[in-house]
């Protein structure tokens, strides 16, 4: 474990918040929270979705004004509330999760955009913006062509551009909201190095991340929030992921290996030598009735491409797929659905569910045929089908007609699973089913997966978090660079060994 901090205990804090209360329409978003950051430390803010992390960041940066009685001490001055301008001028910067960048504009303009806002309208000094941008990138040890439009660069480089933007001017305190959410492992490592360098140069970083492993690796202290209240501040040394999870959720999770032998069961899916050059090579695997096969590996290992091929959305160049002994050739995912394959996509928000539509409409979208009555859609049949699945999967909803966007991440995921179960699949492919789902709700999702397997479904569980497949699958396959490079039985292999192989 690296401890990246230049701060010493007892040093005067850079930022100190006390008595922070925030109410939105009668709901208390923050209850008497205090929060402290020392100069140059990497401090993690942990908590489930909706626990008040973002609200707290917005209080510090002046977007929200806390209730009376709040004390904000920052760098020698005391404020009742911040304003965005003061925060900016005094060196408090935020890198938002959505980056707030301008893809069509040049890298230079993105980094030095403050040059064109505020003050009176005037002529743009492009040379000055280029110098500022090159300078800021240089401090991060990165060189990009600052004249190219930002859209020419991949997400990892855009992330760096966002960091460079935050460092322009004098930055003393930088908030990073989920900076690694869409990065691969090596890109994440690079980002963590940048954070360490910032810290070493005296900039305090407040790091928000769902990935607890990197939280433990990077931070010196961890502040945990739950339901808008402070749980406590803990040194990262001696902390474990499961302990943080307990603190965040207030529950203990007893994780045990669920793997059972399924060798006596008939093979449902048989894949032989499936290849699509550049994406996956020579993939062979079998999934039996009631078996859960976990596939793990880094982003870009070809997991999702393989899943899309099994679902008929990508055409393999060679190899064959058989379902219950019969060879199948899919020309589209409609064929795959008909053959009994269901695929829960990685990107639930934009691909899996139609956010403005109702819970009921989302649930029946893949099985409209079943609710026909005399050739027309029947509301009665729809209601019946939806009620059954809502009850089966324990989804907590208000009314069936409510928009899907009103549900929490965990409940949305249950509806997404229900949508596919309603098609009566034989094979269910779950691609990263816990992305954006709270730690507390994840266990519920995996309980459902176990129940489905018990009922005879063949399941492929894809995840980049090794523990998820380790604890919840009967077999774990490791994919790297488009190939299956390892196969493990969780009852015999140790989690640490698999993790070492995957993250190596």
């Amino acid at each position, binding site marked *: 474990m690296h401890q990246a901090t230049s701060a010493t205990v007892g040093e005067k804090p850079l930022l100190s918040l006390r008595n922070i209360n925030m109410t939105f329409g009668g709901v208390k978003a923050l209850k008497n929270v205090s929060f402290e950051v020392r100069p140059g430390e990497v401090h993690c803010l942990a908590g489930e979705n909706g626990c008040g992390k973002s609200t707290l960041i917005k209080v510090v940066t002046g977007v929200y004004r806390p209730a009376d009685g709040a004390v904000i001490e920052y760098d020698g001055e005391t404020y009742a509330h911040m304003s965005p*301008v003061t925060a900016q001028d005094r060196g408090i910067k935020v890198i938002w999760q959505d980056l707030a960048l*301008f893809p*069509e504009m040049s890298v230079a303009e993105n980094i030095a955009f403050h040059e064109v806002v505020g003050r009176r309208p005037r002529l743009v000094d492009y040379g000055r913006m280029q110098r500022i941008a090159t300078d800021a990138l240089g401090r991060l040890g990165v060189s990009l062509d600052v004249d190219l439009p930002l859209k020419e660069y991949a997400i990892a480089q855009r992330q760096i551009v966002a960091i460079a933007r935050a460092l322009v001017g004098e930055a003393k305190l930088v908030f990073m909201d989920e900076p690694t959410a869409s990065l691969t492992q090596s890109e994440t490592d690079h980002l963590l190095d940048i954070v360490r360098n910032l810290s070493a140069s005296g900039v305090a970083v407040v790091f928000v991340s769902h990935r607890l492993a990197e939280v433990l690796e990077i931070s010196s202290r961890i502040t945990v929030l739950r339901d808008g209240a402070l749980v406590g501040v803990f040194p990262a040394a001696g902390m474990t992921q499961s302990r943080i999870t307990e603190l965040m959720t207030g529950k203990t999770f007893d994780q045990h290996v669920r793997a059972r032998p399924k060798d006596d069961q008939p093979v449902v899916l048989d894949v032989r030598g499936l290849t699509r050059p550049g994406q996956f090579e020579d993939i062979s695997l079998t999934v039996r009735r009631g078996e859960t096969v976990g596939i793990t590996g880094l982003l870009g290992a070809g997991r999702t491409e393989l899943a899309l091929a099994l679902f008929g959305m990508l055409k393999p160049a060679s190899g064959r797929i058989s379902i219950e002994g019969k060879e199948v050739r899919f020309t589209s995912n409609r064929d795959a659905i008909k053959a009994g394959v269901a695929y829960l996509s990685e990107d639930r928000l934009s691909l899996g569910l139609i956010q403005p539509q109702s819970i009921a409409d989302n649930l029946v979208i893949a099985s409209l045929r079943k609710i026909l009555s005399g050739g027309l859609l029947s509301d009665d049949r729809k209601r019946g089908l939806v009620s059954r699945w809502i009850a089966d999967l324990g989804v907590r909803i208000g009314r069936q007609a409510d928009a899907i966007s009103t549900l929490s991440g965990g409940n949305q995921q249950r509806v997404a699973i229900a949508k596919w179960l309603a098609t009566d699949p034989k094979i269910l492919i779950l691609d990263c089913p816990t992305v954006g789902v709270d730690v507390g709700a994840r266990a519920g999702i995996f309980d459902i997966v176990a129940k489905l397997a018990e009922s005879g479904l063949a399941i492929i569980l894809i995840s980049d978090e090794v523990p998820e497949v380790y604890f919840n699958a009967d077999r774990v396959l490791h994919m790297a660079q488009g190939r299956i490079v390892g196969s493990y039985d969780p009852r015999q292999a140790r989690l640490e060994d698999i993790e070492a192989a995957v993250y190596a």
Partner: protein
Amino acid sequence: MRSLIRTHATEFSLLAVIIVISTVLSFATANFFSLGNAFDLLNISAVNIIFAVGLLVVLIAGGIDISFAVAASVVQYCTATALGWIGGGGWVSGLLIAGSLGVLLGCVNAFLIHRFRIISIVATISTFNIYFGLLMFFTRGVSIYDLPDWLTDRVILFEHEMPDGTWIEITLPVLVMVICVIATWMLITRTTVGRQLYAFGDNPEGARRFGINIGAMQFIAFGWLGLMAGIGGLIQAHYAQEVVPNALYGRELDVLAAVVLGGARLGGGKGSVLGCVLGVLLISITQNGLNLMGVSPFAFKMIVGAIILVAITLSNTRIERLLPFVGQKGGGR
């Protein structure tokens, strides 16, 4: 150079298409490839280019405007009437009145969009109908022919007879067009306000977090288009030597097509003055060439439509990939 081609792919490919079409036309017709015809084209296109650069600013800011052409008709009418009241006026008073009226009508759109959060296409379809309805109601569809002499007299700033017997002419509309083009180019590329317009169109939420005044952006964008519409309206009256209430009706879609052809994106954040001018010119050249070839004018729209489809499809498939001399650069997507 490579990076110039990459970042200006639309402009380069439009230029290439224009060159190809011009070459074909110069073989197919006797008169196309002459300087005289080239300057004719400029004179004919001047009004559309003025409209186009105005519309470009609105598209960059993430909006769209359907009403500007009929707004220009309203401006023509009101200006002609106002000039009658003040006893004739001249170019200065004419441009001032037309410009101010145009800005006013543009600001009505901005107000509706900003104050009542109506999306721009709906707001401007409404004002399109309101403006046109009012105009037809009050004029009863009657044209104005007795315009002041200064407005209807052709102003030739420069003329020269070429050895081949054709005449090069630069007229006032071209001068006004050039000024409008340069002013728009200055606005969107050289001023902080212009960059804020781009940023606002590209990522409105990101722009808001930077503290950009969103309302001001709408008023500047639609106000600028109003200004261009007002000026363009007066110039069109000058060119046509009459004010006909429905003369510009339908022009909005021609101009919109040309601007989108020039690389501007419906949705904002993208587009350049050069691309926009080339877009208008490409359509004018095609029409002009077809005309010289003796193709029926009824076929024009169909052929122009096809050209727009082809050009947009090409630009969606990343034109730079179709150009063999531009290699893929590492680090990008």
